[in-house]
């Protein structure tokens, strides 16, 4: 039988039990308000927030870029959702006075690719590998984004880009750009050099003061891609995440991170650590200013560790 003290204690517990109910009360999505910043003649960057994808940020974490042409603006990376793509399209229309003429999707990841839902598939283009990867993973990404972002995603159905791009120079509405076909961050990574301004749109091959993500990475190919970008003359670099790179440091920083990450994980396997311990490895002080470093380290452990164990642990 409960004594009076127990009954009193039960009474005191009631407010504590109500608190989770309030925390679980329904939250509604906000409105995307992308801000464009001009970085060269006819070139704008739209910054994502340097955070993991979360309901609070609507998944608007990737950078986009807008290039003005006589035919209408070119949008490089249309965001995470239909609403996000529409908002980016509205910014481009406002800046250039014409609707978006062409959309490039740099690679398959949802924060860069799913906003294609806001545009006619005829004007959305990507590398063949990116289209193939979206055919494989696009619906899974869409499900995952609906789970995380709920009504921010409303109306977002998978729009596959034309997988028709190849390396080379193209002219769109009088604007000369070079398409650079790479891989390493994913199976297909498109970078674009705007010839007139020297702005290099690097997609997620380059992160700046924000740790790199590795869910589909091939680190050896990624290093080769960074070599290509480093030897491509440019004045400014728009990374996939993080601020505009004005001093040419972001390519080296991205390489530094993956060159630290891979040996650190190999060493963790050889020293007998399990995955959660490897996720707790100390991060070198030189990466102290890097956003989402612990988060991406733990994601990378998930992506890379089982294969490293299969390679490095002795067969018994």
């Amino acid at each position: 039988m409960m004594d009076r003290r127990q009954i009193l204690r039960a009474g005191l517990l009631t407010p504590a039990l109500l608190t989770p109910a309030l925390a679980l009360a329904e939250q509604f999505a906000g409105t995307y308000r992308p801000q464009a910043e001009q970085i060269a003649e006819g070139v704008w960057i739209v910054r994502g927030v340097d955070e993991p994808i979360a309901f609070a940020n609507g998944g608007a974490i990737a950078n986009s870029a807008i290039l003005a042409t006589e035919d209408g603006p070119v949008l490089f990376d249309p965001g995470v959702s239909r609403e996000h793509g529409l908002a980016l399209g509205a910014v481009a229309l406002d800046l250039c006075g014409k609707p978006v003429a062409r959309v490039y999707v740099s690679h398959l990841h949802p924060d860069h690719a799913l906003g294609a839902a806001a545009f006619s598939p005829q004007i959305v283009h990507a590398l063949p590998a990116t289209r193939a990867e979206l055919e494989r993973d696009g619906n899974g990404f869409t499900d995952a984004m609906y789970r995380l972002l709920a009504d921010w995603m409303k109306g977002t159905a998978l729009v596959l880009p034309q997988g028709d791009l190849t390396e080379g120079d193209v002219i769109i509405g009088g604007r000369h750009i070079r398409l650079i076909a790479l891989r390493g961050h994913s199976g297909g990574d498109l970078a674009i050099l705007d010839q007139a301004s020297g702005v290099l749109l690097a997609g997620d091959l380059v992160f700046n003061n924000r740790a790199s993500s590795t869910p589909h990475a091939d680190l050896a190919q990624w290093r080769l891609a960074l070599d290509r970008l480093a030897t491509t003359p440019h004045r400014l670099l728009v990374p996939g995440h993080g601020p505009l790179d004005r001093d040419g440091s972001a390519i080296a920083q991205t390489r530094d991170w993956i060159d630290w990450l891979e040996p650190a994980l190999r060493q963790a396997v050889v020293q007998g650590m399990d995955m959660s311990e490897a996720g707790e490895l100390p991060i070198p002080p030189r990466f102290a200013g890097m956003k989402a470093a612990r988060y991406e380290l733990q994601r990378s452990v998930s992506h890379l560790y089982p294969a490293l164990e299969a390679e490095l642990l002795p067969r018994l």
Partner: protein
Amino acid sequence: MNRLRRLIVAVAVGWGLHALASYAEVPADPLGSPMWDHHAVGLFGKAPVSFDVRVNVRIPEIAENQRVFPVTVDARALKDAKRIVLLADLNPIPIAVDYTLHGAAPFLATRIKLDQRTPVRAAVQTSDGAWHVGGTWVDAAGGGCSAPPVSRVKGDWADHLGEVRGAAWPDIENDKVRLRMTFRHPMDTGLVENVPPYNIERLTVRDTAGKVLGEMDVFGSVAEDPAFTVVVDDHGGALTFVARDTAGLEFTGKAKP
């Protein structure tokens, strides 16, 4: 009639108080899990239960892959631990590992499946019979237990079944040995259509003289290609281990620090 009604009310009140009293023996769950009372009654019976910071459940801040979620249980701050139960309240197969220690330290690292957002906990029993519980909520995408294993999708599971890797390292500071064991195994949950449950169900670690140092009951909610890390007493010489699956196959290994 009145007397009957009074009797019914008395029985009902008595039953209600009894129910409250038996709940009162399990402390309220700081995680507010809807399954806490159910699991607590089944696991702990009448034994005393407390939430104890000495049971450290170390997990990443994000469940990047709901099929392979790393968990490290470190209860070495507890004296006289004899058993560790690793469970995820809302998994369809809630218990992942039930580990009985005989000269093994209360430490276990492995990877589990998550079928949805769930508390992930370790309950550690000390030799006085009391249970000490630690853990936290983990947000996860759905389907970790009900999606087919990667090796089933690829179709090569049988080619690699039972491949064993591992090694042992001296833990000089604590006069112990750390042993890591990995196995290729689909660890089928039985929750994927037309694939019956098939999993490693028992893992035993012995010292060089054959004395059992630790033994685990292992369930289908442990991740495909399971990996286990344990810390055991150092008796010198090689450690041996054997895993048996639900088809009776045995996978063995031997490692020396």
